[in-house]
């Protein structure tokens, strides 16, 4: 009643954005380069942060050029860091808006949005006697969280990266090796070629007895799953898959109206509002020319093209589109 139509929190956020009870945010306190295209971002999470387990990931909402974009990154800090900070380690991917921003441009002091940590790529409560980590590229990040969190008596890692200087956390890994805490095989794919999982036994003879955590590109994980199940030890393998590939925008495509459960074909020129109405879906609308914002609807999957500017919008959580001026750019899912 005191602050209607706003909430008291809208005012408190001005003073203390990280307080308990606020929407979960984090302040970036430092960015440390790891390799030419990867960096570790140190984040002080707000009071509402419930902590994480090694191997889990967190979704972060970062404003890039004024637009809030959400991405998931593995946490690389141990679960109980004394200073309460957490780290994510980000590899800049070509044309990756968020990853390039975090690796190359973001300034300490920037506020970002956070979700609670999640994911079941974690260590079991009782630590296994023998462990194998099979990783490639930035697939090492969740595993680094585990290595920093728990010491194992017998841990082996097979890690793939194009060249030695592309190996994220290389110095730290080699320190672990020197201290006798890890046995490491680096596969440098630029010179050695890609790892043939079927021949993993050459590198790690007792691989089948080990509790294995694997993280990396789809090809590697598919091969690993096949290999483990062929040898009847599928239950020993834990995998973490990265976000499925980038949407390729085309013209037109199959449009699913998921709330109504209807799917129709649409060309690349017909507004989705018309497509929906034609299919008998109840679509909110107003001006039908892009000015009233009476037709905004969540885009759950796929991509759409703005018929006025040609701009492509890809589905992401929380993305709303104006159906009267958007057409299908490939298959998409509209929540109506």
């Amino acid at each position: 009643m005191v602050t209607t139509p706003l909430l008291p929190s809208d005012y408190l956020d001005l003073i203390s954005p990280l307080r308990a009870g606020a929407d979960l945010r984090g302040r970036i306190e430092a960015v440390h380069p790891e390799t030419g295209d990867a960096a570790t971002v140190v984040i002080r999470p707000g009071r509402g942060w419930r902590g994480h387990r090694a191997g889990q990931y967190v979704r972060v909402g970062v404003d890039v050029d004024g637009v809030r974009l959400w991405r998931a990154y593995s946490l690389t800090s141990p679960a109980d860091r004394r200073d309460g900070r957490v780290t994510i380690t980000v590899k800049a991917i070509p044309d990756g808006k968020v990853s390039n921003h975090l690796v190359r441009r973001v300034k300490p002091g920037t506020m970002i949005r956070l979700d609670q940590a999640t994911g079941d790529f974690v260590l079991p409560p009782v630590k296994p006697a023998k462990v194998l980590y099979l990783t490639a590229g930035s697939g090492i990040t969740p595993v680094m969280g585990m290595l920093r969190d728990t010491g194992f008596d017998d841990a082996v890692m097979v890690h793939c990266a194009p060249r030695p200087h592309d190996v994220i956390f290389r110095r730290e890994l080699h320190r672990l090796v020197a201290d006798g805490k890890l046995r490491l095989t680096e596969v440098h794919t630029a010179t050695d070629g890609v790892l043939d999982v079927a021949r993993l036994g050459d590198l790690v003879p007792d691989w089948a007895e080990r509790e294995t955590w694997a993280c990396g590109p789809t090809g590697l994980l598919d091969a690993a799953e096949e290999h483990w199940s062929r040898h009847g030890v599928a239950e020993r393998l834990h995998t973490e898959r990265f976000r499925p590939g980038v949407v390729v925008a085309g013209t037109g495509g199959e449009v699913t109206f998921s709330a109504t459960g209807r799917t129709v074909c649409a060309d690349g020129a017909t507004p989705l509002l018309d497509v929906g109405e034609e299919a008998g879906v109840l679509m909110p609308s107003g001006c039908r020319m892009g000015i009233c914002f009476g037709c905004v609807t969540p885009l759950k999957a796929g991509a759409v093209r703005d018929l006025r500017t040609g701009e492509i919008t890809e589905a992401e959580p929380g993305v709303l589109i104006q159906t009267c001026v958007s057409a299908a750019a490939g298959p998409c899912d509209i929540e109506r």
Partner: protein
Amino acid sequence: MTAIDPTAHLTAEQIEELGRELDAIRDEVIAGRGEKDAAYIRKVISAQRKLELVSRGVLLFSLFPPAWVIGTAGLSVAKIMDNMEIGHNILHGQWDWMRDPKIHSTTWEWDHVSPAAQWKHSHNELHHTYTNVLGKDNDLGYGIMRVDEDQRWHPVHLGQPLWNFVNACFFEYGIAAYDLELGKNLSKQRRKDPEFRARARAVGRKIRKQVLKDYVVHPLLSGPSFLPTLAATFTANVVRNIWSHSVIMCGHFPEGVQVFERRSIEGETRGQWYLRQMMGSANISGSRAMHFMTGNLSHQIEHHLFPDLPSNRYAEVAVRVRALFEKYELEYVSGPLPKQVFSAWRKVFRLSLPNRRTGAAGTPDREPERELVAA
């Protein structure tokens, strides 16, 4: 009446070319939207909230007259900022591209008795689509006034200067009633319509909350300053109402602004739509502070051409739009606030009387109101 079409010299091709040029301006601004713009709206929102907090804080001591004056002035400005530069523009979707659910047309609620959702329908959808079309755009006179010579005069119009003044003082309630289409919905049958009743209940809830906050909770918090605080909030609301009413009247009422017949928009092309927005709106000239306090509705012409472009960009867009007005030899109606307000009020008074005859020599004793006839 004599219909002089101020766009008669344009060919159909020219009108479409004009539309393409305006589209190009729009595309450029959209492509250039970014961090600076986002920082701008965040800064304005945070400044507004701080100003409101401080002003309400000062009003706790409003028993002391200087505190009353400062608090009331601060609160008035805060309320104007909330409604104009922030609320109006966010509800237009101008900041939706930021994908910040807190600064979004679908979630924003403003310090106003009309619920955002209802206002968006009557304003964004009806007014902005049917700008200045008689019988379709009820913003023309809010259904309570005669605003064009073409509308038939009735003795009841004699009172319209008074209605207009009362409406200005309690403008937010006027808007709420208007968004509800109260006039036409009060008939016995319509009153029972469940949809109308739901909307009326929503307005009731919003009014209750607003009144409770401004006239009960805050005065009570002020303890001994109960009455001065109550008077201060009332004053701030009236100041905000008169201010926004004045600014809004300047948008489509001043002399030189065209109104259109219903049939003139049938089959309207993109270019013709743009042209109607250009001829149906008027600007307020002035300082940056003036533009800010009007929520950049001083750039009404640009706002009507591009209602969803971020408000902080209208000033730069205006330069280019004005050049197009010159290129196509069209009249860009603009003037300082006092002049435009005066012009709008003069029209309210003039049209409260029946149309005057033109002089014997055939010269009208005033600028003739023009009408755009569909090509």
